[in-house]
């Protein structure tokens, strides 16, 4: 132990830790943006289909039509607004987006209902294709049920699809987004902090001084990376705690496995940052380039919109995105509670990315020194 404490490597680690502790900007960067982003993404991103504004123009206004309106609004998906007075007003309100769904029940509705061929008109604002699709299928389901209620007293359909939602029975959207944001935060913060740590020495001109010390080049790099690595692991724990406490995201899987794979992913992000740091001379160039790289990485990772919905070309492309694999792992462990037997491919990809990137960045760093 004593011998280790006397090595140049340990001295360098101490120096880095002191520098980090004195660097308010870095500490701020490690704590505040992750918290803000987790809270914002967790609550602002929400694909729920609920309380869609429904306007019913009920010309008939009889018991049966009111029954139909009640059937439409009783499930919380559609929320009735003040009824429009004319068809022109109804279509105007759908056009300007004040209503999501408009229903017209014609005056001859009761008469035609008795004859067995009543019709109603439904207008759906389909600008948002996704919401419109789901709303449409709810509507046809409701009309179908209504039809059955008119004919028979038996409410159960002959064949019923009973849907069971696994992993997230309440369909809480934050459970999907929190693992994504974890990946996003670690990527952004990891690349930027490590890039700054490497480039700063150059920017300020103290790299030569470091080179004159007896420490080897790999020791210099490792000493930079180690404290950062532990701080970022702290970010992982921070994100998990926030997810657990604020959003009640479940933790079904193995904690240790998640930590090991998170560590793997941190090596990836730190190496990307260090690589950027070796290429450039100034902080601002590094930050801009990090921005260049991070944007497409975030967009194709499945953090915000699911990878499975992307066109095939982008799905294939996203295999080259380490962040995508990490997010798949976090979702798998947190929500599904699966282990390596299901995630081995993603884990393997992460390990390969980590090894390749660490090798390249150390080599780059060494080249730059000599």
């Amino acid at each position, binding site marked *: 132990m004593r011998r280790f404490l006397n090595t140049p490597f340990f001295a360098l680690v101490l120096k880095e830790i002191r520098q980090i502790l004195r660097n308010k*900007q870095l500490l701020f960067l490690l704590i505040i943006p992750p918290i*803000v982003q987790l809270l914002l993404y967790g*609550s*602002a*991103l929400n*694909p729920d289909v609920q309380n869609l504004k429904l306007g019913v123009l009920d010309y008939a206004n009889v018991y049966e039509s009111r029954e139909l309106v009640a059937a439409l609004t009783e499930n919380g998906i559609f929320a009735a607004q003040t009824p429009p007075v004319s068809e022109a007003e109804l279509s105007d309100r759908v056009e*300007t*987006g004040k209503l999501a769904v408009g229903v017209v029940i014609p005056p001859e509705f009761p008469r035609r*209902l008795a004859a067995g061929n*009543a*019709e109603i008109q*439904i*207008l*759906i*604002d*389909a*600008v948002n*294709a*996704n919401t*419109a*699709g789901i709303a*449409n299928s709810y*509507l046809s*389901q409701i*009309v*179908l049920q*209504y039809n059955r209620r008119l*004919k028979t007293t038996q409410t*159960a*359909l*002959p*064949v*019923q*699809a*009973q*849907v*069971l939602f*696994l*992993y*997230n*029975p309440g369909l809480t959207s934050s*459970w*999907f987004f929190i693992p994504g944001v974890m990946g996003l935060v670690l990527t952004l913060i990891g690349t*930027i902090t490590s890039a*700054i740590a490497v480039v700063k020495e150059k920017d300020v001109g103290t790299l030569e001084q470091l080179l004159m010390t007896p420490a080897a080049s790999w020791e210099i790099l490792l000493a930079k990376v180690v404290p950062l690595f532990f701080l970022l692991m702290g970010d992982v724990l921070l994100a998990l705690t926030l997810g657990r406490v604020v959003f009640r995201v479940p933790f079904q899987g193995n904690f240790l496995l998640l930590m090991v794979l998170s560590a793997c992913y941190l090596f990836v992000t730190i190496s990307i940052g260090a690589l950027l740091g070796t290429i450039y001379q100034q*902080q601002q*160039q590094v*930050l*801009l380039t990090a921005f*260049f790289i991070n*944007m*497409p990485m975030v967009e194709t990772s499945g953090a915000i*919109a699911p990878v*499975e*919905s*992307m*066109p095939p070309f*982008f799905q294939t492309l996203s295999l080259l995105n380490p962040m995508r694999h990490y997010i798949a792992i976090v979702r798998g462990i947190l929500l599904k509670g*699966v282990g390596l037997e*299901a995630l081995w491919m993603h884990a393997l990809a992460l390990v390969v990315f980590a090894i390749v990137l660490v090798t390249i960045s150390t080599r780059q760093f060494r080249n730059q020194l000599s």
Partner: protein
Amino acid sequence: MKRILAQCKKELVQFRRDRLTLALAFLLPFITLLIFGFAIRLESKDIPVIVQDFDHSNLSRSFTERLYGTNQFTPRQWSGSNPARDAIDMGIAKAAVIIPPKFSSQVRAGIPTTIQVLVDAADVNNARVVQAGVQSVTNFFMQDQRLLPTTSTVTAHTRLWFNPGRLESLFIVPGTFGVVLWIFPSLLMAIAMVREREKGTILQVYTSNISAVELLLGKGLAYWLIAICEAILIIGMGALLFHLSFAGDPTPLLFGTLIFLADSILFGLMLGVKADSQAEAVQGVSLIGFVTSLLLSGFIYPLNNIPFPLSLVPNVIPARYFIDISRDAFVRGTGWAGVWLSVVMLFVLGFFFFNVARKGLDRMQLSD
């Protein structure tokens, strides 16, 4: 006025010389447009589904055929002790349909039967899509097998307005314009502003006879012109690649874009004046700009799903108003009647940003 134009010209010359900023101004916005426009989709097509048929009858087979007959689901095979659950756990299938034994005999006897569907709800939105899809397959199946009365008492005539084919690109691409034209012009502006201070050339500005407001206007004007070029490139290419065309009066979009770009520039100025280093400016703009325009603008998910205290924030976010205008121009087509308020709000927010930036500059001058 002359001084403002001179300042503007100087900025443009400086801008042309810097390769990195040029790329930032045109290449990255374009790439972002491509990735957002092509890759952001919410609704999965070809969802892998595994069917576990315990009945092995003609009826159950015809249900399976119906299921795979839609273009929404694709078949997957998996064997094991518990194929349905395992396939979902392993990520092989997103949903499993379990047809019970005695399915056909019960249906024939008129006893209500349930088909169990397990859905991987880790992705919440697609869980709903799967549910809706299976539901409608079941309905079709019942009608097909004459389990339901063939003529229904009430028929709903549904019309999907503005977007009858439910093309997701019609929703995403006009929104992308808002995100891209918010992030990049403001980033460029903020960098340009901080650079002046970092290099110390702001002192030269102070000694010249140009006033603070003239400096801001001159710089702003130059970057506004650049932003207009960006907008022409982005909106033009977007319309071309994703087959968008004007649905109505294009003048609100024209005015809205000009004001929105000014907002974006002024926002960049505001942050640029406040930030001490380029690093800070880049981080500030990318974090605030990214978060506000992406999350709190209704770009991907509906704004009215945002919970209460947070739901107040979108009211002061320019990108949200611009996305309204842009979607109206390309999809809805209601023109001024539908979006005049958004244009006014953009104007008001721009005025606010300008005043904050001006005050910040005053303070900057005093402290030096």
